[in-house]
């Protein structure tokens, strides 16, 4: 079984080929930080209202450490327990992607925050910005929850592991990051900070995959060991998401405190609740809130993009196209 302790090294016959497919798909989406042009953002930053500037500075401070936390949990907790070589291939790839995200946000802060003291303060946000510290505390608590576990021997060990996995997929990547993406896309829908948005688009694409992989692991474990998912476990997941929503709502209150036209804290709360319900639905758990998405600009993220190539780099291409020269294929 997937969570059995050990170090399975056998790729043939492959037990979990869907993990391997995810690994291959991820490789096709390779992007590099150099491809993101942040140049035009600088002019936009100067145009923002003070309230919007506050929003952006808080947001980048969150980005400064967010992906690093995820990467740490991946290495310290997830990798050792997902005992499948193809699953670990995916996790290795995910780790690379987290590193690229860290580099992207490093680049972003270096560009957005020219003052060295302010920059250092942004990177220390988990210590000195209360609304971010609260989110970090939530993450660290869940990292610590399984940190001592070397092997998943008992049912309780495995439940603890699954809760950690679900926390990082559904709450951190699936809610904290999704909340952050909403601010970015809000700004983009107003024609602002395209550099940030285009990098975020690629980050978002990667994060969607990470979450899908984690849910795939949860599903696989659930099939192998259906009894792990009992009522108490389900309730724990709901509680965890409820707490995550509260963390993110207080972050929103901080970001939006000066008044941003088009994005009220009330709408943001509804949006976060809606996202939390979706995570629960994906896990087959009853929703908590029954809220609807109030942000029409998020619907724009769900449809195909078409960029005018004069204006921005098109993100719709793949790497690793295969095949040989041929003259009679159908097209």
């Amino acid at each position, binding site marked *: 079984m997937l969570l059995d302790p050990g170090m399975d090294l056998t790729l043939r016959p492959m037990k979990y080929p869907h993990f391997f497919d995810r690994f291959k798909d991820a490789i096709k989406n390779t992007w590099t930080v150099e491809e993101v042009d942040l140049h035009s953002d600088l002019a936009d930053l100067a145009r923002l209202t003070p309230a919007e500037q506050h929003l952006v500075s808080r947001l980048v401070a969150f980005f400064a450490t967010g992906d690093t936390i995820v990467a740490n949990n991946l290495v310290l907790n997830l990798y050792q327990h997902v005992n499948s070589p193809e699953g670990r291939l995916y996790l290795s790839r995910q780790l690379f992607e987290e590193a690229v995200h860290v580099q992207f946000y490093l680049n972003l802060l270096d560009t957005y925050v020219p003052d060295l003291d302010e920059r250092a303060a942004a990177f220390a946000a988990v210590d000195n910005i209360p609304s971010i510290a609260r989110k970090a505390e939530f993450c660290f608590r869940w990292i610590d929850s399984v940190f001592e576990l070397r092997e998943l021997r008992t049912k309780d060990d495995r439940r603890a592991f699954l809760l950690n996995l679900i926390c990082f997929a559904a709450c951190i990547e699936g809610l904290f990051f999704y909340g952050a993406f909403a601010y970015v896309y809000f700004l983009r829908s107003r024609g602002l900070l395209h550099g940030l948005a285009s990098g975020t688009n690629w980050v978002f694409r990667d994060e969607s995959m990470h979450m899908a992989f984690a849910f795939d692991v949860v599903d696989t474990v659930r099939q192998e060991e259906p009894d792990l998912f009992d009522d108490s476990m389900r309730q724990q997941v709901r509680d965890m998401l409820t707490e995550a929503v509260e963390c993110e709502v207080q972050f929103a209150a901080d970001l939006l405190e000066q008044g941003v036209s088009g994005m009220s804290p009330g709408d943001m709360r509804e949006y976060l609740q809606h996202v939390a319900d979706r995570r629960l639905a994906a896990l087959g758990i009853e929703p908590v809130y029954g809220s609807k998405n109030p942000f029409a600009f998020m619907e724009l993220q769900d449809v195909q993009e078409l960029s005018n190539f*004069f204006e921005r780099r098109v993100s719709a291409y793949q790497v690793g196209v295969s095949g040989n*020269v041929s003259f009679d294929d159908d097209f």
Partner: protein
Amino acid sequence: MTTSQRATLPEQRRHAMRVRKRNGDLEPVDVNKIVRAVELWVADLDEVDPLRVATRTISGLYDGATSAELDKLSIQTAAELIGEEPQYSRLAARLLAAFVDEEVRGQGVASFSESIRYAHTLGLIGDETATFVARNAGELDDAVDPRGDLRFEYFGLRTVADRYLLRHPQSRLVVETPQFWLLRVACGLSRTAAEAAGFYRLMSSLAYLPSSPTLFNSGTRHTQMSSCFLVDSPRDELDSIYERYHQVAKLSKFSGGIGISWSRVRGRGALIRGTNGRSNGIVPFLKTLDAGVAAVNQGGRRKGAACVYLEPWHPDVEEFLELRDNTGEESRRTHNLNLANWIPDEFMRRVEADGDWSLIDPSDAPELPDLYGAEFDAAYRNAEKKAVKTVKARDLYGRMMRTLAQTGNGWMTFKDRSNALSNQTGEPGNVIHLSNLCTEILEVNSDDETAVCNLGSINLGAHTTSEGVDWEKLRETVRTAVTFLDRVIDINYYPSQQAAASNPRWRPVGLGLMGLQDAFFTLRLPFDSAEARDLSTRVQEEIFLTAMEASATLAEQFGAHPAYPETRAAKGELHPFLWGAQPAQVARWSALRERIRESGLRNSLLVAIAPTATIASIAGCYECIEPQVSNLFKRETMSGEFLQINTYLVRELKARNLWTPEIREQIKRAEGSVQGIAELPAAVRELFRTAWELPQRALIDLAAARAPYIDQSQSLNLFLSAPTINKVSSMYLYAWKAGLKTSYYLRSRPATRIQQATVSVIPALTAADVCSLENPESCEACQ
């Protein structure tokens, strides 16, 4: 979400909400006031709910917002409802027009002539146009159509407001309304007020629009109105290379798109006699070009853009094809340059025959860029003994295909066909060395002549009803368009002396087409049907023939263009007949031939189908000759993101009572495809296929069928959602054999996508349901 649900939510917030008026006073937000503001504009929009816009606007507001913020938010809010009901696009456009109008009037501008006078004092308008308008103020002010703005969709008007309207240099407020802008463009190109009013009416009806540089700059102090510049390769020496950087920068500054060849510059490892060193090849020079292009900001409107052309015998061609890769050494990557292959037929023949291909240094065979056809073949074969490297032709072709599939770049353009079928290559020594940034312009150039082209596009959708195409209206539009495209040549400001040397001699223009897909939808013709192909060909013949007639008329008035004796037309060879086509309008072609024999032509080239990305948005139609990309998609531009929905489909669904939240979600989930909507009859689904769902062979066949009536070329994109080398290589070989002169982007889609946030969740598939080709034994579904 319904109005009632929405209205109950922020009850307490709404009472607390106040708005800061322009005089600084705070006043409580009044829903009814917003409702009344919206109601002003909805007389013909029966599906719009003003209360819904008002309540949603207030929900996004914060206490103490300014009234300008409130106005902007109501525009944005209306725009966000487009996905549910396309009429909100019109509403948002009208609210925006009212906002712009207020901004202009707030500066004391009440009429067109006042806006010109004001902008002239600000240093924005040229003296000639200012004088012209002052002299004809009354007549021109009367020409403004007060209802003109009602024709805009939101995306179009937003684009106009953000980028086309002239702004106060300090306050950045707009100083002209959309209608004043179009009339200003017309005045910049007109000799009489009546002429200006006529041209303005055509543009204001959105049936025709000139290209962006004309829309930006006509009537201003820098009247650079051309879209395209084709710069010959630098000579194989340092001074010439640096001269080209300078020239490209100057051309870019005034909104020109650049095509530049690099085929004459020696490759890596070639000897440099002056220093007895070895060349580093073309890549480091292209890296400098890349940085130069990015540095030039076209008046704040968009970044400079250039495409580099290289012939495939150049020794650095393999590195050239990697310039857009996103991995590898950054110093050998150019993320801002577009790339195109300028391919002789000999290469394609060797690909087909699986032969060898020699890479030859231009310093060993400097004549190759100036030859085409049989002469090129002979010179190339002769130079092969000096080859620096020999590769398999198919391997190199495969690399080209890989670049296309992975970056969309590395466009396939065909040198021999482009030259053999050009009106400009009637005399030896006149050679086309490359195409332009969008692969629709094919004009001769040289070291001292940079080719220039002015463009404009007819909106075919605006000439089509369910009865068919209005041919007389189409001819009238073509005549007006040619007159004003030709006019640009004399009024234009040329940013480089090489451009100024070329354009008056050849006087080429590029009249294009947009909204072909609109016409097909209106007439219910599937894109790949024989009827669609016939219509597209007939339309193109009509446009080309009428444009030639108009140019002959201009020649009768003003004389043939100076290089006319060097053209094929001077020998009686007209483009469709070079192509071997059988025109439908035989008598008109014969009559035209007689007129040309008498007086020649005013323009060496007349027709080119440009991509029209921005002006199609303004006109609210589909781009050029392209099929729709999706029934539901978004556009990302500098102005923001815009949901685009197929209004023809919406009408169809409404008529069938199928425009429901469920169907909308289904379309969204299928990324804008309707193929899975079982409630729709097969014929309707066939009509509304997307570019991804059409056989690409049909796109090539349509392009080849209309090509005899395009004396330059067409920006033909091809679409493969999951390209493989096999498919791509088959497709481009077919395109070459079909006789196309050029092709443009290969569009594809990302391998995976962002998780959709607003469609309902389908619980993850369980492992056993997932079909895996990697491990078929584990998957029962494949057994």
